[in-house]
Protein backbone atom coordinates (compact mmCIF):
# COMPACT_ATOMS: atom_id res chain seq x y z
CA UNK A 1 0.00 0.00 0.00
CA UNK A 2 1.58 3.23 -1.15
CA UNK A 3 1.41 6.56 0.59
CA UNK A 4 0.23 9.25 -1.82
CA UNK A 5 0.96 11.88 0.80
CA UNK A 6 4.70 11.24 0.51
CA UNK A 7 4.75 12.82 -2.94
CA UNK A 8 2.18 15.46 -1.99
CA UNK A 9 4.36 16.44 0.93
CA UNK A 10 7.51 16.44 -1.24
CA UNK A 11 5.82 18.70 -3.78
CA UNK A 12 4.85 21.02 -0.94
CA UNK A 13 8.45 21.23 0.26
CA UNK A 14 9.63 21.83 -3.31
CA UNK A 15 7.62 25.06 -3.51
CA UNK A 16 10.37 26.74 -1.54
CA UNK A 17 12.41 29.10 -3.71
CA UNK A 18 15.57 27.20 -2.85
CA UNK A 19 14.21 24.09 -4.57
CA UNK A 20 12.90 26.06 -7.56
CA UNK A 21 16.02 28.09 -8.25
CA UNK A 22 18.79 25.91 -6.88
CA UNK A 23 19.89 28.39 -4.21
CA UNK A 24 20.07 25.71 -1.52
CA UNK A 25 23.21 24.25 -0.06
CA UNK A 26 24.39 21.09 -1.81
CA UNK A 27 23.48 18.81 1.09
CA UNK A 28 19.96 20.24 1.01
CA UNK A 29 19.81 19.62 -2.75
CA UNK A 30 20.65 15.96 -2.12
CA UNK A 31 17.99 15.82 0.59
CA UNK A 32 15.37 17.31 -1.77
CA UNK A 33 16.26 14.62 -4.31
CA UNK A 34 15.88 11.96 -1.61
CA UNK A 35 12.46 13.23 -0.50
CA UNK A 36 11.20 13.46 -4.08
CA UNK A 37 12.53 10.03 -4.98
CA UNK A 38 10.83 8.44 -1.96
CA UNK A 39 7.56 10.16 -2.90
CA UNK A 40 7.78 8.81 -6.44
CA UNK A 41 8.50 5.31 -5.14
CA UNK A 42 5.41 5.38 -2.92
CA UNK A 43 3.24 6.49 -5.85
CA UNK A 44 4.66 3.72 -7.99
CA UNK A 45 3.02 1.24 -5.59
CA UNK A 46 -0.31 3.03 -5.99
CA UNK A 47 -0.05 3.04 -9.78
CA UNK A 48 0.82 -0.64 -9.84
CA UNK A 49 -2.23 -1.49 -7.70
CA UNK A 50 -4.52 0.77 -9.73
CA UNK A 51 -3.45 -0.64 -13.08
CA UNK A 52 -3.88 -4.20 -11.84
CA UNK A 53 -7.39 -3.34 -10.69
CA UNK A 54 -8.30 -1.75 -14.01
CA UNK A 55 -6.57 -4.17 -16.36
CA UNK A 56 -7.29 -7.45 -14.63
CA UNK A 57 -10.11 -7.03 -12.12
CA UNK A 58 -11.80 -10.36 -12.77
CA UNK A 59 -9.12 -12.55 -14.27
CA UNK A 60 -7.19 -12.70 -11.05
CA UNK A 61 -10.09 -14.50 -9.35
CA UNK A 62 -10.94 -17.09 -11.96
CA UNK A 63 -8.89 -20.11 -12.78
CA UNK A 64 -9.84 -20.48 -16.43
CA UNK A 65 -8.59 -17.07 -17.36
CA UNK A 66 -4.95 -16.06 -17.12
CA UNK A 67 -3.83 -13.19 -14.94
CA UNK A 68 -1.03 -10.68 -15.06
CA UNK A 69 2.20 -11.95 -13.62
CA UNK A 70 1.75 -11.27 -9.95
CA UNK A 71 5.39 -11.23 -9.13
CA UNK A 72 6.15 -8.43 -11.58
CA UNK A 73 5.28 -4.96 -10.49
CA UNK A 74 4.58 -1.97 -12.67
CA UNK A 75 7.39 0.52 -12.32
CA UNK A 76 8.52 3.86 -13.66
CA UNK A 77 11.94 4.44 -15.20
CA UNK A 78 13.27 7.75 -13.87
CA UNK A 79 16.53 7.35 -15.80
CA UNK A 80 14.93 7.34 -19.25
CA UNK A 81 16.49 10.77 -19.81
CA UNK A 82 19.84 9.00 -20.00
CA UNK A 83 18.37 6.07 -21.96
CA UNK A 84 18.48 3.66 -19.05
CA UNK A 85 15.65 1.37 -17.98
CA UNK A 86 16.17 -2.07 -16.42
CA UNK A 87 12.72 -3.34 -17.46
CA UNK A 88 13.10 -2.62 -21.17
CA UNK A 89 16.72 -3.78 -21.24
CA UNK A 90 16.38 -7.04 -19.33
CA UNK A 91 13.02 -8.38 -20.54
CA UNK A 92 12.12 -9.88 -23.89
CA UNK A 93 8.51 -8.86 -23.41
CA UNK A 94 6.90 -6.15 -21.35
CA UNK A 95 3.96 -3.79 -21.32
CA UNK A 96 4.36 -0.03 -21.60
CA UNK A 97 1.48 1.96 -20.22
CA UNK A 98 1.38 5.59 -21.30
CA UNK A 99 -0.72 7.97 -19.19
CA UNK A 100 -1.87 11.31 -20.62
CA UNK A 101 -2.37 13.89 -17.84
CA UNK A 102 -3.92 16.47 -20.19
CA UNK A 103 -7.60 16.98 -20.92
CA UNK A 104 -6.98 16.64 -24.66
CA UNK A 105 -5.89 13.65 -26.72
CA UNK A 106 -2.13 13.77 -27.36
CA UNK A 107 0.45 11.79 -29.27
CA UNK A 108 3.51 10.74 -27.30
CA UNK A 109 6.73 9.45 -28.81
CA UNK A 110 7.83 6.50 -26.74
CA UNK A 111 11.59 5.93 -26.66
CA UNK A 112 12.69 2.71 -24.96
CA UNK A 113 16.33 1.81 -24.29
CA UNK A 114 17.09 -1.69 -25.60
CA UNK A 115 20.30 -3.66 -25.81
CA UNK A 116 19.98 -5.50 -29.11
CA UNK A 117 19.51 -4.36 -32.66
CA UNK A 118 16.76 -6.99 -32.80
CA UNK A 119 13.32 -7.32 -34.26
CA UNK A 120 10.84 -5.78 -31.85
CA UNK A 121 7.07 -5.95 -32.17
CA UNK A 122 4.87 -3.37 -30.54
CA UNK A 123 1.16 -4.18 -30.38
CA UNK A 124 -1.64 -1.88 -29.34
CA UNK A 125 -4.49 -3.36 -27.23
CA UNK A 126 -6.38 -4.22 -30.43
CA UNK A 127 -3.44 -6.29 -31.64
CA UNK A 128 -2.40 -3.88 -34.33
CA UNK A 129 1.32 -3.67 -35.03
CA UNK A 130 2.78 -0.24 -34.50
CA UNK A 131 5.37 1.33 -36.76
CA UNK A 132 8.70 1.22 -34.92
CA UNK A 133 12.20 2.51 -35.45
CA UNK A 134 15.50 1.68 -33.79
CA UNK A 135 17.86 4.60 -33.28
CA UNK A 136 21.43 4.15 -31.96
CA UNK A 137 22.00 5.92 -28.65
CA UNK A 138 24.44 8.80 -28.93
CA UNK A 139 27.94 8.15 -27.60
CA UNK A 140 27.52 11.34 -25.57
CA UNK A 141 24.67 9.70 -23.62
CA UNK A 142 26.54 6.42 -23.16
CA UNK A 143 29.47 8.11 -21.44
CA UNK A 144 27.46 10.15 -18.94
CA UNK A 145 29.08 9.44 -15.55
CA UNK A 146 26.92 7.16 -13.43
CA UNK A 147 24.89 5.75 -16.32
CA UNK A 148 24.78 2.00 -15.78
CA UNK A 149 23.20 0.58 -18.88
CA UNK A 150 24.06 -1.76 -21.72
CA UNK A 151 21.43 -0.23 -23.99
CA UNK A 152 22.82 0.61 -27.41
CA UNK A 153 19.56 1.58 -29.12
CA UNK A 154 16.28 3.27 -28.49
CA UNK A 155 13.12 1.64 -29.77
CA UNK A 156 10.83 4.46 -30.90
CA UNK A 157 7.13 4.31 -31.60
CA UNK A 158 4.17 6.64 -31.64
CA UNK A 159 1.56 6.33 -28.89
CA UNK A 160 -1.08 8.02 -30.96
CA UNK A 161 -4.14 9.86 -29.68
CA UNK A 162 -3.84 8.91 -26.03
CA UNK A 163 -7.22 9.49 -24.38
CA UNK A 164 -7.58 12.63 -22.22
CA UNK A 165 -6.71 11.92 -18.58
CA UNK A 166 -6.43 8.28 -19.56
CA UNK A 167 -3.92 5.69 -20.59
CA UNK A 168 -3.17 3.10 -23.23
CA UNK A 169 -0.94 0.07 -22.86
CA UNK A 170 1.29 -1.43 -25.53
CA UNK A 171 2.71 -4.94 -25.57
CA UNK A 172 6.36 -4.94 -26.61
CA UNK A 173 8.18 -8.14 -27.43
CA UNK A 174 11.35 -9.26 -29.07
CA UNK A 175 10.51 -11.58 -31.98
CA UNK A 176 6.96 -11.97 -30.72
CA UNK A 177 4.82 -14.64 -32.29
CA UNK A 178 1.09 -14.39 -31.98
CA UNK A 179 -0.89 -17.48 -30.99
CA UNK A 180 -3.88 -18.54 -33.04
CA UNK A 181 -5.35 -16.41 -35.73
CA UNK A 182 -3.11 -14.03 -37.62
CA UNK A 183 -4.07 -10.41 -37.46
CA UNK A 184 -4.63 -8.58 -40.68
CA UNK A 185 -1.94 -5.94 -40.71
CA UNK A 186 -1.80 -3.25 -43.29
CA UNK A 187 1.28 -4.21 -45.28
CA UNK A 188 2.64 -0.75 -45.94
CA UNK A 189 2.16 0.41 -42.40
CA UNK A 190 4.63 -1.90 -40.75
CA UNK A 191 8.13 -0.68 -41.29
CA UNK A 192 11.27 -0.89 -39.27
CA UNK A 193 14.51 0.79 -40.13
CA UNK A 194 17.58 0.88 -37.95
Amino acid at each position, binding site marked *: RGDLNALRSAMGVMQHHDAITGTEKQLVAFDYARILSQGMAECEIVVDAALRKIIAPKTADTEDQPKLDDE*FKTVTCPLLNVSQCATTEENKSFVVTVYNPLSKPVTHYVRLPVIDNANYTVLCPMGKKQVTQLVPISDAVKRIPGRASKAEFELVFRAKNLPPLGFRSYYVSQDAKLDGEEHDYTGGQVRREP
Partner: protein
Amino acid sequence: AENIVLGDHMSLSLTLNENGELSSATFGEKTIKLSQGIYYYSGAAGNNEEFKNRSSGAYIFRPTPAQPILLSAKGEVKQYKGPIVEEVQVIYSNWVSQTIRRYTDEEYVEVNWIVGPIPIDDNVGKEIIIRYESDIKSNGVFYTDSNGRETLKRVRDFRPTWKLELAEKISGNYYPVTSRISIKDEKNQFSVLTDRAQGGSSLNDGQIELMVHRRLLHDDAFGVGEALNETAYGGVGLVAVGSHYLTAGGRPATDKFLAHRKLMDSWMFFTPTPTTTFQQWQ
Protein backbone atom coordinates in the same frame (compact mmCIF):
# COMPACT_ATOMS: atom_id res chain seq x y z
CA ALA B 1 31.59 18.42 -45.23
CA GLU B 2 28.12 18.95 -46.59
CA ASN B 3 24.96 20.52 -45.32
CA ILE B 4 22.46 18.12 -43.77
CA VAL B 5 18.76 18.43 -44.55
CA LEU B 6 16.12 16.99 -42.24
CA GLY B 7 12.45 16.76 -43.07
CA ASP B 8 10.44 17.54 -46.16
CA HIS B 9 9.40 20.77 -47.71
CA MET B 10 5.70 20.21 -47.00
CA SER B 11 5.66 20.75 -43.25
CA LEU B 12 9.05 21.29 -41.66
CA SER B 13 12.57 21.13 -42.99
CA LEU B 14 15.86 21.97 -41.37
CA THR B 15 19.27 22.59 -42.78
CA LEU B 16 22.31 22.02 -40.64
CA ASN B 17 25.85 22.91 -41.52
CA GLU B 18 28.71 20.43 -41.58
CA ASN B 19 29.21 20.95 -37.81
CA GLY B 20 25.65 19.90 -37.03
CA GLU B 21 24.52 23.42 -36.21
CA LEU B 22 21.19 24.69 -37.48
CA SER B 23 21.50 27.06 -40.43
CA SER B 24 17.93 27.47 -41.70
CA ALA B 25 14.46 26.19 -40.96
CA THR B 26 11.22 26.10 -42.90
CA PHE B 27 8.06 25.77 -40.84
CA GLY B 28 5.13 25.30 -43.21
CA GLU B 29 5.17 28.25 -45.58
CA LYS B 30 7.54 30.29 -43.44
CA THR B 31 11.28 30.10 -43.88
CA ILE B 32 13.58 31.73 -41.38
CA LYS B 33 17.32 31.92 -41.29
CA LEU B 34 18.26 30.16 -38.14
CA SER B 35 21.66 29.51 -36.67
CA GLN B 36 22.63 28.14 -33.34
CA GLY B 37 25.63 28.01 -31.10
CA ILE B 38 26.60 26.79 -27.64
CA TYR B 39 28.70 29.26 -25.64
CA TYR B 40 29.86 29.95 -22.13
CA TYR B 41 30.17 33.09 -20.07
CA SER B 42 32.97 33.20 -17.52
CA GLY B 43 31.54 33.81 -14.08
CA ALA B 44 32.75 36.91 -12.27
CA ALA B 45 34.98 36.16 -9.30
CA GLY B 46 35.76 38.52 -6.43
CA ASN B 47 35.89 38.93 -2.68
CA ASN B 48 32.29 40.27 -2.46
CA GLU B 49 33.37 43.21 -0.31
CA GLU B 50 32.22 45.83 -2.79
CA PHE B 51 29.60 45.69 -5.51
CA LYS B 52 32.20 45.57 -8.23
CA ASN B 53 33.83 42.58 -6.57
CA ARG B 54 30.66 40.56 -6.34
CA SER B 55 31.04 36.97 -7.61
CA SER B 56 28.63 35.11 -9.82
CA GLY B 57 26.97 32.44 -7.73
CA ALA B 58 23.85 30.56 -6.79
CA TYR B 59 21.69 33.70 -6.44
CA ILE B 60 23.05 35.93 -9.16
CA PHE B 61 24.26 35.58 -12.72
CA ARG B 62 27.16 37.92 -13.23
CA PRO B 63 29.28 37.19 -16.27
CA THR B 64 32.59 38.92 -16.84
CA PRO B 65 32.25 41.64 -19.46
CA ALA B 66 33.99 39.59 -22.15
CA GLN B 67 32.01 38.08 -25.01
CA PRO B 68 30.84 34.49 -24.50
CA ILE B 69 33.15 31.81 -25.81
CA LEU B 70 31.93 29.44 -28.52
CA LEU B 71 31.94 25.76 -27.60
CA SER B 72 30.29 24.36 -30.72
CA ALA B 73 32.87 25.31 -33.33
CA LYS B 74 33.47 21.83 -34.67
CA GLY B 75 31.42 18.71 -34.12
CA GLU B 76 31.44 15.02 -34.90
CA VAL B 77 28.15 14.41 -36.71
CA LYS B 78 26.02 11.28 -37.14
CA GLN B 79 22.69 11.27 -38.92
CA TYR B 80 19.88 8.70 -38.69
CA LYS B 81 16.66 8.63 -40.70
CA GLY B 82 13.60 6.46 -40.25
CA PRO B 83 9.84 6.42 -40.61
CA ILE B 84 9.17 8.13 -37.26
CA VAL B 85 12.10 10.35 -36.50
CA GLU B 86 15.13 11.82 -38.21
CA GLU B 87 17.96 12.86 -35.97
CA VAL B 88 21.42 14.33 -36.09
CA GLN B 89 23.72 13.55 -33.17
CA VAL B 90 26.57 15.99 -32.72
CA ILE B 91 29.43 15.70 -30.25
CA TYR B 92 31.42 18.92 -29.86
CA SER B 93 33.66 17.86 -27.01
CA ASN B 94 33.70 15.40 -24.14
CA TRP B 95 31.31 17.66 -22.25
CA VAL B 96 29.14 19.37 -24.88
CA SER B 97 26.86 17.57 -27.32
CA GLN B 98 23.40 17.74 -28.79
CA THR B 99 20.89 15.76 -30.82
CA ILE B 100 18.53 17.56 -33.18
CA ARG B 101 15.33 15.61 -33.85
CA ARG B 102 12.51 16.05 -36.25
CA TYR B 103 9.49 13.76 -35.82
CA THR B 104 7.64 13.07 -39.06
CA ASP B 105 4.20 14.14 -37.86
CA GLU B 106 5.23 17.13 -35.77
CA GLU B 107 5.74 20.80 -36.51
CA TYR B 108 8.48 21.43 -33.98
CA VAL B 109 12.22 20.75 -33.78
CA GLU B 110 13.63 19.08 -30.70
CA VAL B 111 17.12 20.06 -29.59
CA ASN B 112 18.28 17.60 -26.98
CA TRP B 113 21.38 18.96 -25.26
CA ILE B 114 23.89 17.36 -22.90
CA VAL B 115 26.25 19.67 -21.04
CA GLY B 116 28.74 18.67 -18.38
CA PRO B 117 30.74 17.85 -16.40
CA ILE B 118 31.84 21.48 -16.87
CA PRO B 119 35.65 21.57 -16.61
CA ILE B 120 37.10 23.86 -13.97
CA ASP B 121 40.79 23.04 -14.35
CA ASP B 122 41.40 26.63 -15.42
CA ASN B 123 39.82 27.89 -12.17
CA VAL B 124 37.12 29.71 -14.12
CA GLY B 125 33.43 29.27 -13.33
CA LYS B 126 31.33 28.79 -16.47
CA GLU B 127 27.72 29.53 -17.35
CA ILE B 128 26.65 27.67 -20.49
CA ILE B 129 24.11 29.09 -22.91
CA ILE B 130 22.52 27.95 -26.13
CA ARG B 131 21.94 30.85 -28.48
CA TYR B 132 19.57 30.81 -31.46
CA GLU B 133 19.94 33.55 -34.06
CA SER B 134 17.29 34.30 -36.66
CA ASP B 135 16.58 36.99 -39.24
CA ILE B 136 13.47 38.11 -37.34
CA LYS B 137 13.47 41.87 -36.80
CA SER B 138 12.41 41.80 -33.17
CA ASN B 139 13.28 45.43 -32.49
CA GLY B 140 14.39 44.94 -28.89
CA VAL B 141 11.19 43.14 -27.85
CA PHE B 142 10.83 39.58 -26.68
CA TYR B 143 8.28 37.61 -24.70
CA THR B 144 8.70 35.27 -21.77
CA ASP B 145 6.06 33.43 -19.82
CA SER B 146 5.32 34.03 -16.20
CA ASN B 147 5.22 30.74 -14.32
CA GLY B 148 3.64 29.08 -17.34
CA ARG B 149 0.66 31.44 -17.25
CA GLU B 150 0.64 34.91 -18.79
CA THR B 151 3.17 35.75 -21.48
CA LEU B 152 4.85 39.07 -20.68
CA LYS B 153 6.38 41.55 -23.08
CA ARG B 154 10.02 42.34 -22.28
CA VAL B 155 11.86 45.26 -23.81
CA ARG B 156 15.65 45.22 -23.87
CA ASP B 157 17.28 47.80 -21.56
CA PHE B 158 13.88 48.99 -20.38
CA ARG B 159 11.52 48.68 -17.40
CA PRO B 160 7.94 49.88 -17.68
CA THR B 161 7.81 51.77 -14.36
CA TRP B 162 11.14 53.55 -14.03
CA LYS B 163 13.95 54.97 -16.09
CA LEU B 164 16.53 52.26 -16.34
CA GLU B 165 20.26 52.64 -16.48
CA LEU B 166 21.72 49.19 -16.71
CA ALA B 167 25.19 48.69 -15.31
CA GLU B 168 25.26 45.05 -16.43
CA LYS B 169 23.81 44.69 -19.89
CA ILE B 170 23.75 40.90 -20.05
CA SER B 171 22.34 39.78 -16.73
CA GLY B 172 20.19 42.93 -16.50
CA ASN B 173 18.28 41.71 -19.53
CA TYR B 174 17.87 38.11 -18.34
CA TYR B 175 14.40 36.94 -17.33
CA PRO B 176 13.01 33.69 -15.97
CA VAL B 177 11.68 31.40 -18.68
CA THR B 178 9.38 28.80 -17.19
CA SER B 179 8.04 27.32 -20.40
CA ARG B 180 8.79 29.54 -23.41
CA ILE B 181 10.51 32.59 -24.87
CA SER B 182 9.53 34.18 -28.20
CA ILE B 183 10.45 36.89 -30.65
CA LYS B 184 8.41 38.10 -33.59
CA ASP B 185 8.10 40.62 -36.40
CA GLU B 186 5.33 41.32 -38.89
CA LYS B 187 6.02 38.16 -40.87
CA ASN B 188 7.31 35.54 -38.46
CA GLN B 189 7.37 34.36 -34.92
CA PHE B 190 10.03 32.15 -33.39
CA SER B 191 9.70 30.45 -30.01
CA VAL B 192 11.85 28.21 -27.90
CA LEU B 193 10.04 26.04 -25.39
CA THR B 194 11.96 24.64 -22.44
CA ASP B 195 11.46 21.45 -20.47
CA ARG B 196 12.32 23.21 -17.20
CA ALA B 197 12.75 26.73 -15.86
CA GLN B 198 15.81 28.48 -17.30
CA GLY B 199 17.15 32.00 -17.53
CA GLY B 200 16.83 33.57 -20.96
CA SER B 201 17.09 36.75 -22.96
CA SER B 202 17.25 38.33 -26.37
CA LEU B 203 20.39 40.44 -26.21
CA ASN B 204 20.29 41.37 -29.90
CA ASP B 205 17.47 41.55 -32.42
CA GLY B 206 16.58 38.12 -33.78
CA GLN B 207 18.40 36.34 -30.97
CA ILE B 208 17.18 34.07 -28.21
CA GLU B 209 19.52 32.62 -25.62
CA LEU B 210 18.89 30.30 -22.73
CA MET B 211 21.18 29.24 -19.92
CA VAL B 212 21.26 25.46 -19.61
CA HIS B 213 23.92 24.76 -17.00
CA ARG B 214 26.37 26.57 -14.72
CA ARG B 215 29.27 25.69 -12.45
CA LEU B 216 30.80 28.41 -10.33
CA LEU B 217 33.70 28.46 -7.93
CA HIS B 218 32.81 31.32 -5.59
CA ASP B 219 30.02 32.08 -3.16
CA ASP B 220 28.05 35.20 -4.13
CA ALA B 221 27.55 36.28 -0.48
CA PHE B 222 23.78 36.31 -0.72
CA GLY B 223 23.29 33.69 1.93
CA VAL B 224 23.90 30.21 0.61
CA GLY B 225 27.47 30.27 1.89
CA GLU B 226 28.97 27.99 -0.74
CA ALA B 227 29.85 28.01 -4.42
CA LEU B 228 27.44 26.56 -6.97
CA ASN B 229 29.82 23.73 -7.74
CA GLU B 230 27.74 20.60 -7.84
CA THR B 231 29.28 17.19 -8.20
CA ALA B 232 27.55 13.94 -8.82
CA TYR B 233 28.59 10.36 -9.44
CA GLY B 234 32.22 9.75 -8.52
CA GLY B 235 32.79 13.36 -7.54
CA VAL B 236 32.77 14.66 -11.12
CA GLY B 237 30.77 17.75 -12.05
CA LEU B 238 27.08 17.43 -12.71
CA VAL B 239 25.87 16.61 -16.23
CA ALA B 240 22.68 18.39 -17.32
CA VAL B 241 20.46 16.80 -19.97
CA GLY B 242 17.43 18.52 -21.42
CA SER B 243 15.50 19.65 -24.46
CA HIS B 244 14.47 22.78 -26.29
CA TYR B 245 11.54 22.68 -28.68
CA LEU B 246 11.65 25.18 -31.53
CA THR B 247 8.59 26.43 -33.35
CA ALA B 248 8.17 29.21 -35.87
CA GLY B 249 5.53 30.81 -37.99
CA GLY B 250 2.84 28.74 -36.36
CA ARG B 251 -0.37 29.84 -34.75
CA PRO B 252 0.17 31.03 -31.15
CA ALA B 253 -2.18 28.27 -29.99
CA THR B 254 0.26 25.69 -31.38
CA ASP B 255 2.98 26.97 -29.06
CA LYS B 256 0.66 26.96 -26.09
CA PHE B 257 -0.52 23.42 -26.69
CA LEU B 258 3.04 22.24 -27.26
CA ALA B 259 4.04 23.91 -23.96
CA HIS B 260 1.23 21.99 -22.24
CA ARG B 261 2.34 18.76 -23.88
CA LYS B 262 5.91 19.18 -22.77
CA LEU B 263 5.35 20.56 -19.27
CA MET B 264 2.68 17.98 -18.50
CA ASP B 265 4.28 15.23 -20.51
CA SER B 266 2.84 11.73 -20.66
CA TRP B 267 4.01 9.28 -18.01
CA MET B 268 5.26 5.83 -18.83
CA PHE B 269 4.93 2.73 -16.68
CA PHE B 270 6.53 -0.63 -17.38
CA THR B 271 5.41 -4.13 -16.50
CA PRO B 272 7.55 -7.16 -17.34
CA THR B 273 5.49 -9.97 -18.88
CA PRO B 274 7.77 -13.00 -19.07
CA THR B 275 4.93 -15.53 -18.87
CA THR B 276 1.97 -13.53 -20.09
CA THR B 277 1.34 -13.80 -23.82
CA PHE B 278 -0.16 -11.00 -25.82
CA GLN B 279 -3.53 -12.78 -25.98
CA GLN B 280 -3.62 -13.29 -22.23
CA TRP B 281 -2.69 -9.69 -21.64
CA GLN B 282 -5.24 -8.54 -24.23
